[in-house]
Structures are given as structure tokens and as C-alpha cells.
């Protein structure tokens, strides 16, 4: 069985070596020294080859300007470079920007761009592209960045390789979103004066990244090819990236297992299968590369609900949930209990001295009794309807877990199932729900992904993933506003600490788990996970390791 697999893999690899050789012959014309196939095989890591990657679900568009959905970003990260990239500690490192300076008052940010970078269509990349993108995308239609960049009053480009942002008030989180998908830079020459939402290049993107868009066959695959003119010499290693769309989880597991797929980010298979695949010597399961996202699973209480408006009831529910068991049983250990809305991966902002709700059924019952909701003859205090995020069975099972947990303290839960359109409308638009599971990416700064769940300014706008609970707290609102324009990092930390203390005391929204996404990839790949925003970044460092073989 194993032997057979190896042979098949060998067959594919032989084809890839031939393809690589042809590619290099072509590359010779543009000045790259061709290596013979024999020499390449002798190297430990070699150039060339096609990497098949799982893409799930099928993206809506391939340009990250308006769509923050995961599949779009996973592909786009290979096509578009950001000004910076983020290491595992979420510190920015140079990409299109070689250097940058933030003025001490936080009101000026200067980027020094790499020179000689070209768009995939051959046109030179310049500061004008950055300026145009900031003004027309980051500040306007980008779903997440608008508030971060709204204080940028002016963008100066003294020369082609310098961009200066001038702000009316400081906005420190800007430095946390400057990668290729957080602040995408689009080619001005292809977008200027067009309807950005409907620009045809949204689906055949032109970037500066290590891979060039070749084809998107809907329902089947997206194909990218090596960018021979990439600014980082010698990279990327791979000739081709094939993002294959495989909707069924069992089929994805089978494809990975068989070696038809060599890289699969973003929880491609059920946890139980991940456990199984991780034991295969040919495969690796890795939870690194998602640090930039910091996903948090939480429970939104509708604070207008007749029972849930009582903070004691919300606290009781918090005590009734065994988050460690939830992480273990439902999430198979690919999660850890969350104690704050600011995930622990945001080391600077995460506060450990906060009100806590340890698993304590007695305390929960006592709180409910105290709130006046006694058990009736059937042992039921009251009934709630639960809406789970319709993003798959893990969320459904989380709902089922909550149902059973709350039953133990006398709260009867009916689970309501619906698709995502209905869920969003119910929770964020109609607010016709009792309590719901949801998840948000926190990103490196609470300003980006955390505060939106608590700021009352979002109420009434019907915007997804914002303040679902209907929470209003003047002090919390004020802290959010202040931290947004605070130029002093230490002060910001203090403000966020107070914010965490308030919202965790009121628990309009209960942090449940910090999720660990995982990727599965073939053991003969190197350089697959190199940085903290890897899944949204490029595979320029990825390469096959050649196990020397007789054929």
C-alpha cells in the first residue's frame, strides 16, 4: 500500500522534474542560470514542481480589496504582496516596503518602497499605486480598514519609492494590517477610473507577488504560475500552484491521504481525521501560521431578552459551561478555553486579571435562583432558543454541547438551524434571537477585531459580526474611542485593560474558546509555514524536498 503510494508520487514528481527542466530552459532566456535536471535532483531542496492545495469553499473573487473571506485571501496572498509581512510574533517585516518610520507623535508614517518591482503585466510598481489603493480602497470599500485609516488626511508621494501618510489623530493599529490582504495594493493603471467592485481584473488579478494568475476554472481549480520576475531573487521555488476546490470533507481527507493534495490550510478535514492524518509519516498537521488571525469563539447574549437582560443569568450561563470539556470533546483539543475577549495571542493587550467564570454548576444554579428563575415541576427554569453559526458541524456540535450543559442547570434550549444568510439577518439585522454562537478574528490589535463586538455605534446598522448582543455601555464606548486615537502604546494598553474588565463583568458576550486552525501538508514539503500570517501570505518559500530515488 505504502509502496504503491510512493511510486505514484514518484511518477508525479518525475513529470514535475521534466516540467521544471522546461521551465528553466525558458528561464535561461531571461538570464537565470539553467540547472540540469540531474543537478536539481541532487540538491536537498529543489526548484520546480506543482503544489496542489485545497481551496474551500470556492472564492467569490480573487482580489482581496472588498472580500475578506478566507478562500479569497488564501489565493490572493500569493498574487499580491503587502507593504509588510508578519512574523510569528506578529512583528512587521519588510516586503514591498523596505523600511518605515512612525513619527513620535504618531501623526506621520513613512514607507520606503522597494525599487524595481514590477506588476505581473510588466508595468512598474510605484508609490502612486499605494496612494491610490489607500485612498480608493483602504479608506472606503475595504470592509475592515475603514476605521483604521479614516484619520489619514493626506498621502504624499515625494518620489516613486516613498509614501508618507499624514494623520489627524494617531492610528497605531495600522501597522498591524499592512500585509497583502490586510491592506491590498492594486495596480492603479488597471483600476483607476473604473467601477472597482466590477472591475474584470477582480477575477484575473494582477499583483506583484511571487505567483501569477493563470486560470480560474469555476468549480474545479484556480491555477497560478511562478512569477519569473519576482523581486526576491531565486523565489518562488515552485512552478505552479493549483488550488483545487473539493467541497466534501471526506473527499478532502481522501485526496490528502492519497497525495493528490499536498497542502491544505484552514481546517480542511474534520478534527478526527486530522488526528488520524497526523499519525501518517507522509503528512504533517500544523497549527502555526494563523497567529495573525487569532480567532475567538464566543457566545452573544441578546441583552434585550427577558431572561438574558439580567446579568446574573448571563453569568450563570457562563458558569454552567465547561469550556475545557467543550475544547476537548467538540473541538478535539484544537482550541483552548478563552478568558477574555482579547485572545491570549495578543500578548500586549491580553489581560489575565479579569472577572472569571469557572465551570461551577452550583454557582450557576444559585445565580439563577437569585435572579428569581426557579425550576418548575419539570425542573425547567425557562426556555431559550439557540442559534449556532452555520459554518459546519463543529459549530452545530458546540450548540448541542451548550444545550446539554444548560439543561443541567434547568435551562431548556431549542437549537435553531439555518443557513448563513438567515443567521446574519436574524442576529445582526433583525436581532430576533436569544443567544448565538459566533466567531471573530481578533487580529493583532483589539481595535481591528475585538471592539466591534461591543461598540454601541454599530447598533442599528445591521452589519455582520459587529455588536450582536445589543450591548451599550458608555464607559466601554468611550474607552474604545479613546484607544482608537491614542498615540501612546502604554496608555492604549491601560485603556484596553479597563475595557476588558468592564465587558467581562457585564458579559454581553461570553468568550468561549480561542480556536486553533490547522493545516495539513505533505512531509516532503519545506517552507510551508514561515510566518504568522502564513495562510494569508504567499508560498514563495515552499519547495519539495527530494528524496533521491532510482528513477
Amino acid at each position, binding site marked *: 500500500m505504502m509502496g504503491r503510494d510512493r511510486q505514484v508520487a514518484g511518477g508525479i514528481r518525475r513529470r514535475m522534474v521534466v516540467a521544471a527542466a522546461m521551465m528553466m530552459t525558458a528561464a535561461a532566456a531571461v538570464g537565470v542560470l539553467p540547472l540540469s535536471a540531474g543537478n536539481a535532483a541532487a540538491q536537498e531542496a529543489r526548484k520546480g514542481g506543482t503544489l496542489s492545495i485545497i481551496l474551500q469553499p470556492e472564492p467569490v473573487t480573487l482580489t482581496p480589496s472588498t472580500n475578506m473571506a478566507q478562500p479569497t485571501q488564501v489565493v490572493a496572498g500569493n498574487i499580491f504582496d503587502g507593504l509588510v509581512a508578519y512574523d510569528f510574533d506578529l512583528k512587521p517585516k519588510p516586503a514591498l516596503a523596505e523600511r518605515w518610520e512612525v513619527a513620535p507623535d504618531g501623526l506621520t508614517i513613512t514607507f520606503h518602497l522597494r525599487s524595481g518591482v514590477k506588476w505581473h503585466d510588466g508595468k512598474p510598481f510605484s508609490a502612486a499605486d499605494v496612494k491610490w489603493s489607500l485612498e480608493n480602497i483602504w479608506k*472606503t470599500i475595504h470592509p475592515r480598514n475603514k476605521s483604521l485609516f479614516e484619520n489619514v488626511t493626506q498621502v504624499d508621494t515625494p518620489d516613486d519609492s516613498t509614501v508618507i501618510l499624514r494623520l489627524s489623530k494617531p492610528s497605531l493599529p495600522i501597522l498591524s494590517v499592512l500585509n497583502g490582504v490586510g491592506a491590498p495594493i492594486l495596480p492603479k493603471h488597471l483600476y483607476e477610473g473604473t467601477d472597482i467592485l466590477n472591475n474584470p481584473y477582480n477575477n484575473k488579478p494582477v499583483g506583484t507577488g511571487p505567483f501569477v494568475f493563470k486560470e480560474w476554472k*469555476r468549480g474545479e*481549480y484556480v*491555477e497560478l504560475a511562478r512569477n519569473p520576475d519576482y523581486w526576491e531573487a531565486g523565489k518562488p521555488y515552485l512552478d505552479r500552484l493549483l488550488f*483545487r476546490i473539493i467541497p466534501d470533507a*471526506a473527499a478532502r481527507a481522501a485526496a490528502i491521504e492519497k497525495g493528490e493534495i499536498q497542502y491544505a490550510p484552514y481546517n480542511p478535514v474534520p478534527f478526527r481525521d486530522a488526528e488520524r492524518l497526523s499519525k501518517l509519516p507522509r503528512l504533517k498537521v500544523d497549527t502555526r501560521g494563523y497567529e495573525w488571525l487569532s480567532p475567538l469563539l464566543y457566545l452573544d447574549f441578546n441583552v434585550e431578552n427577558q431572561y438574558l437582560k439580567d446579568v446574573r443569568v448571563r453569568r450563570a450561563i457562563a458558569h454552567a459551561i465547561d469550556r475545557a470539556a467543550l475544547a476537548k470533546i467538540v473541538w478535539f483539543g484544537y482550541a483552548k478555553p478563552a478568558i477574555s475577549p482579547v485572545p491570549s495571542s495578543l500578548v500586549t493587550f491580553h489581560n489575565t486579571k479579569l472577572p472569571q467564570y469557572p465551570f461551577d454548576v452550583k454557582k450557576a444554579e444559585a445565580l439563577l435562583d437569585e435572579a428569581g428563575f426557579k425550576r418548575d415541576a419539570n425542573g425547567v427554569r425557562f426556555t431559550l432558543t439557540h442559534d449556532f453559526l452555520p459554518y459546519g458541524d463543529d459549530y452545530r456540535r458546540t450548540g448541542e454541547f451548550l444545550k446539554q450543559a444548560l439543561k443541567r442547570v434547568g435551562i431548556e434550549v431549542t437549537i435553531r438551524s439555518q443557513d448563513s444568510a438567515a443567521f*446574519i439577518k436574524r442576529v445582526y439585522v433583525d436581532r430576533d434571537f436569544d443567544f448565538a454562537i459566533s466567531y471573530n*478574528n481578533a487580529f493583532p490589535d483589539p481595535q481591528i477585531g475585538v471592539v466591534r463586538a461591543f461598540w454601541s455605534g454599530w447598533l442599528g446598522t445591521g452589519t455582520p459580526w459587529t455588536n450582536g448582543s445589543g450591548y451599550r455601555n458608555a464607559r466601554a464606548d468611550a474607552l474604545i474611542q479613546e484607544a482608537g486615537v491614542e498615540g501612546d502604546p502604554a496608555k492604549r494598553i491601560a485603556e484596553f485593560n479597563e475595557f476588558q474588565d468592564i465587558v467581562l463583568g457585564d458579559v454581553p458576550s461570553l468568550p468561549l474558546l480561542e480556536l486553533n486552525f490547522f493545516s495539513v501538508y505533505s512531509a516532503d514539503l519545506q517552507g510551508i509555514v514561515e510566518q504568522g500570517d502564513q495562510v494569508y501570505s504567499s508560498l514563495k518559500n515552499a519547495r519539495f524536498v527530494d528524496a533521491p530515488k532510482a528513477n
Partner: protein
Amino acid sequence: MLTYLRRSAAQLVFVLLGIALINFFLLHLAPGDAAQVLAGESGAATPEYMEALRRQFGLDQPLYIQFLRYLGNLATFDLGYSFRQSLPVSELILQRLPATLLLMGTAIGFALVAGCSLGFLAARRAGKLTDTVISIVALLFYATPVFWVGIMLIVVFSVILDWLPVGGMTSVEANLGGLALVGDVALHLVLPAVTLGLFYLAIYARLMRAAMLEVYGQDFVRTARAKGVRLRRIAWRHVLRNALLPIVTTLGVQLGSILGGAVLVETVFSWPGLGRLAFSALFQRDLNLLLGILFCSSVVVVLVNIAVDLVYTLLDPRIELG
């Protein structure tokens, strides 16, 4: 013939109107719209962004205007634009249609040939072991959920035996062309077509057996025997042809259901067909696309039914189109 065609055309128009009406309003009853889905998937959104989306999708118009506009487009054979996918609906459908037709055609072909053969065999050996085995196997295929069969086939034939690919339609990474590509697609086609076909195989086998036995009981079979025709020839020439008639009728009726089954099979096997496209369009509230697909599938169903009627007249001289 002319009246027949005219009637078919009238039927087609009625069916299409009905589908447009039912689906348009039904789908508008659905909570949430495409802008919300898109915003939801984005992981973040601003009210301004959502407003822009709605304007772009035409969702800011009153419902009846949206409907009239849609009908108007249809009249000019314009299926509209999928804002979500940023492509014209007709282009999206045309991209996927060949895959679906290939899958459905192969599955039906397989089901027909194998099902009728098994039914034929069972009827000729009625009451014997062969018949019992065939009948039981057919019932089992019939009773087993399609998706379950699909997953099991993948596990056995792709993962364990490693004979066939797990899913998809081509080995994209291999860059095949010409005859090699045809062979490659054929390899990818085997499992999904068999999975989809097995259920219908069971139906046809059962139907064929019953029809054959029914025909065997008819007077003209006795006549044929009385004139000394060989049993084998009776089976092939006299019984088979008459027994095919109900099969052909069923085929026409079931076509719609096969497309429904394709949703499951295409999902399990990552087959890039219309069924899956319709499924995702439904959840993404991509109404233009969903309507377009339902439309096209209805057109296909009606067209195939016309073809079935024509085949019927060939098989049964008693029937005349009119």
C-alpha cells in the same frame, strides 16, 4: 408532429414561467440577502459597503420591479448576471453544463444498460437463484443513501485500492491533452457516474423485471411460442421491446430527480457540475444564478422528454405524436 412541437413549446413556456414565478418569490421569502451573505463571509463589513453591494445587485428596487426586470431579461434569453461571481449567469452555466450532462448521461446510460440487463436476466430466470440475487441487490442499491455509497466507493476504490481518483474531473496537475485527457476524464467519471447510476440501476432493474414478466404473460408471447419461436428470440424480439416502453416513460419522468441526485454526487466527488453550483447559489442567495440553473435544468428536462416521446414512437408504432 407540428401540433406536437407547438404543444411542447407551449408547455415549455408555461413551465418556465411557473418556475420563474415560484422560485423568484419563494427565494425572496428567504431570510437574508446576497449582500448580507457576502458581507458575512468577508468577516467584516461597513454599512456603506453593504449599501454599495445592494445597489450593485439591484436589491434596492421594489420586488415587482426586480421580477419584471427579470422576466424582461428572460424574454431576450438573458439569464442575468451573478454579482456574487462577477460573471454572467449564462457563462457560469455553460461552464458547468457539459460536466453535468456528461455525469448525468453516463450515469443514466450505465443505469439503463446495466439495470435493464439485470432486469432482463432476472425475468428470464424468474424464481431462480439469479433472480433472487438480482432482486435483493437491486433493492439494496435502492435503499442505500446515495452519499453513503459515494463515500464508501471513494474509500474502497480510491484510497484502499488506489485504482481511481478521489474526485474532480481532470488531473489538472498533469497538463494532459488530447486522448490522454479524454482517458483522464473517463477515469474521474467512473465513481461519480456509478454512484449516481446505482440508484437508478436498481429502479430500472426492478422495473425491467416487472415489465418483462408482465409482457411474458401477454397473449402474443403465447402466439410466438405456438409458432415455434425460440425462447431466446422471444425474449429479445418480442418481450424486450415491449418491456422497454415503461422504462422509457420512467426515464423521462426521472430526469429531474437525477439532477437533484447530482447535487449529492457532485458534492461528494467534487464534480464541477450544475447541481453543486445550484446548491451553493441557494446558500449564497445568488438568485439570478439559482433561477438560471433551475431554468436550464427545466429546459433540459423538457427537451429530453421530447426526445423520449420521439423514441417512444420509434419503439411503439401505436403511438403517434399529435
